[in-house]
């Protein structure tokens, strides 16, 4: 562990988040700790970090400098080099506020490392062999990733980002879920941002289909955001996926952190799929990053005038050469070059098994939900049952986590999210 005194940081204990450093790694254990502390400094982005590293040679040296009396002043003089990349500062150097923050971080290094340890985070630096190659290839990759879960999940043979609006429609959620389920069945991993709406539907479906999924969050790991997804986050890690952030454990989410985070979502993936995005949606920022990073970018078109898809349509119009359209899930898989891996996805049959497992009446109602009946009135009309029986059966589906609904509109959940309506429609209908 790192102790920081007047003489600077000194090594004490085993390093935090130590993983087997590869032979190629030049970051020794203490140096890794130093990076973990520095990356968590508010306001110090990849550009500043890079400039300081090239001036001082190592993270330890930066921390040591920060703890000397005039250290912060000297740190503040560091020129930023090429500022065209985005972090334009008028003084063209590391800001004084940031330098002071580095000094503070150096003082509290022990506590920060203890916090990281307690949260169970793994530190992956850009110099590590297991830093995801896809991410290393982008402009301004984060120097440090704080990872909860298995960092190997970022190395899937192919990875696809599925993003979209937080205010998703039921249809949008269903599409996101089915794309995610089909992709993980093909061995791809699903990258998204853990937000409610499309992101959550994609993650949840990937987990349900026993696949790996990576969630890139826009805050530190110490801050659960959104709270509604704390259980989903746990299930992602449990299923062998990871929650990833470039921000220190206690950095609050803010207006700026999410767009910055989006470059990591697209950077971790070979391609980005936007399912639903209203005008000026954050998902479109991710799509722009994907194009900028030379990755493929797909958008699910919506009906003209549908607000939830307006952003997708305008993006397709704006980037006719980069942005591609999702013409169907098999077509998407084909376009992604994954069609060769197409085995028997097997997912819909699993959904059918689930339906026959819950009992006759709930099974029938579950099937109707998959077929798109959303309200109690519609379910009663479809089954011809008394309303009391429909409600009782729906309650049991809710209890099993196979249906969720708000404001009187219900949709399949759990294993039913990626059930294929076309296959269910062929099944003979039974009466309870």
């Amino acid at each position, binding site marked *: 562990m790192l102790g920081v005194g007047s003489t600077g940081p000194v090594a004490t204990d085993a390093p935090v988040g130590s993983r087997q450093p590869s032979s190629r790694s030049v970051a020794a254990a203490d140096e890794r700790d130093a990076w973990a502390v520095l990356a968590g400094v508010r306001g110090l982005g990849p550009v500043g970090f890079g400039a300081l590293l090239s001036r001082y040679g190592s993270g330890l040296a930066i921390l040591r400098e920060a703890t000397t009396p005039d250290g912060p002043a000297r740190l503040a003089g560091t020129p930023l080099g090429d500022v065209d990349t985005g972090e334009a500062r008028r003084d063209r150097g590391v800001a004084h506020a940031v330098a002071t923050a580095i000094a503070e971080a150096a003082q509290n290094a022990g506590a920060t490392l203890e916090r990281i340890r307690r949260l169970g985070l793994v530190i992956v630096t850009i110099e590590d062999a297991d830093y995801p190659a896809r991410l290393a290839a982008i402009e301004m990759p984060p120097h440090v990733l704080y990872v909860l879960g298995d960092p190997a999940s970022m190395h899937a043979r192919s990875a696809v980002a599925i993003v979209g609006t937080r205010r998703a429609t039921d249809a949008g959620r269903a599409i996101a879920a089915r794309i995610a389920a089909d992709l993980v069945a093909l061995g791809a991993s699903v990258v998204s941002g853990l937000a409610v709406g499309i992101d959550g539907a994609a993650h949840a479906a990937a987990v349900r289909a026993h696949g790996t999924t990576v969630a890139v969050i826009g805050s530190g790991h110490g801050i659960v955001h959104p709270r509604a997804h704390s259980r989903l986050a746990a299930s992602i890690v449990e299923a062998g996926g990871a929650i990833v952030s470039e921000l220190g454990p206690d950095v609050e989410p803010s207006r700026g952190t999410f767009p910055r985070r989006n470059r990591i979502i697209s950077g971790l993936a070979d391609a980005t799929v936007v399912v639903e995005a209203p005008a000026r949606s954050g998902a479109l920022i991710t799509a722009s990053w994907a194009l900028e990073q030379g990755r493929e970018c797909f958008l699910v078109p919506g009906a003209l005038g549908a607000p939830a898809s307006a952003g997708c349509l305008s993006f397709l119009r704006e980037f006719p050469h980069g942005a591609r359209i999702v013409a169907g899930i098999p077509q998407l898989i084909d376009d992604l070059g994954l069609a060769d891996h197409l085995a028997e996805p097997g997912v819909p049959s699993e959904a059918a098994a689930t339906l026959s497992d819950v009992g006759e009446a709930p099974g029938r109602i579950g099937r109707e939900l998959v077929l798109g009946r959303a309200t109690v*009135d519609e379910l009663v009309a479809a089954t011809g049952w008394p309303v009391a029986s429909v*409600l009782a059966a729906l*309650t049991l589906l809710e209890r099993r986590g196979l249906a969720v609904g708000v*404001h*009187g*509109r219900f949709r399949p959940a759990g294993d039913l999210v990626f059930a294929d309506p076309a296959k269910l429609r062929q099944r003979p209908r039974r009466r309870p």
Partner: protein
Amino acid sequence: MLAIVPSATLHGLDGRLVRVEVDVAPGLPGFTIVGLADTALQEARERVRGALRNAGFQYPPRRITVNLAPADLRKGGASLDLAMALGILLGSEQVRAGPGRTAFIGELSLGGEVRSVPGVLPMVAVLARRGLRRVVVAAAAVDEARLVEGMDVSGVETLGEAVDQIRAGRRRRDVASPRRIELFDARAKGSDVSRGSAREAPDGRPTPDLSEVRGQLEARRGLEIALAGGHGLLLIGPPGSGKTLLARTIPGLLPPLDDAAALTVTVVASAAGEGPLSELRRRPPFRSPHHTVSYAAMVGGGPHLSPGEITLADQGVLFLDELPEFARDVLEALRQPMEDGRVAIARAGRATTFPARFQLVAAMNPCPCGFAGTSERPCACPPRVPERYQRRVSGPLRDRLDLWIAMPRVAPLAIVGGSDPEGSAVVGPRIAAARKVATGRPPGTLNARLTGRTLRAACNLTRAVQHRVVHLAELERASGRGTERILRVARTIADLAGDGTVREDHLDEAAWYRPADIRLAAAEAG
């Protein structure tokens, strides 16, 4: 000379016997009222003076002192006008026969006409309790006064007729006499109209039939259960989904009140000035105060300790449309009445208790913009705002709402097409039958009032069914209150089905009606 005329005033919902003592003595002409009379009563001097003159009597140019006994009782209103005027006539010996044990209740117009006052029923009732057997009231209020058994009631339209009553010493003419004094006729009508508009019950709108509610099967079912068990009901749906229409069908679905309940309701209506009433009110009241209602108007109070909306809804339904828009303190104030079935009001020097056994029915939009959950238009609220909006239904109120019903917008086809759904004439008797079953079982209350031991006894669950309760409680996050909610509602569902014991499918359905925020959280997590 001294004259004593019995009369009565209103104190909250109770009448109080007041003896009007009038002394007409030599001295400087004047008119003094003593005995804790409030402003309206002090103004009685002018009404009495005008009425005496215009009815053809003499206003004695002498020193008039009116004492209202008992002296320590605060008195208000205009019910003593008639007694004071008669006291002056007796005291100045324009009328020589005494009133004996006949009480007089009525307000006077300047023309000498006798008008009815709020609360005739409770006032006459107290006279009867205090041993008086004869009362004279305004002709319009005779039917109301006659609701009190054993009272000899006469109606008068003018001060002159009242004097005739004294002179005769007994009832001389019957009540609803068509004879009116032409001179006052026009003015009398005018005054009746103005009174009518000012005191008209707020729910003067007609009651729609349940068959007018198309689609919304979940809500129709929920309403039936809520009314059968007396359960608190919350309807959540976008504007135009029919929440208010559904709520307005309630008066046509509830069974008529029994004698005791009808008497309470009638007394409240009388005291609130909804009279004159002609018969006992057997229809359960339905009150729908606007969301800008003040604390005092909701709970009761004011200078005359008037009953509030919750008392006016006693034995019936209090409907709160746009629930989150009500002032927080107004909603908080519902807590104690909902627990106790009555509300205690204390003002400086006075305190009273009003009944408030109402069933709460509320409605709200799913979110501030109102479009969450509609298929045709997405909600324009920022994320989490709908959730917070629903959380505004907090604490005590949340626990008292046993059924939460979502009302999505109905497809146009359901409104124009299909067969007619069941009407009030079909559903009403089912509700009445279930209520009878519930009240016929110990402890004799509607199911909404069951808790703890009484609830468990009423449900009488077998072991297998108990297991189902535990299974379903997960949906409510296993809170004790959530479990009780399921059991209470399941009991009512079983009553509607005619089942003595609560079965598993009753519980399944009961768990359906849980609070919307629980469902919202589950949907976001999944």
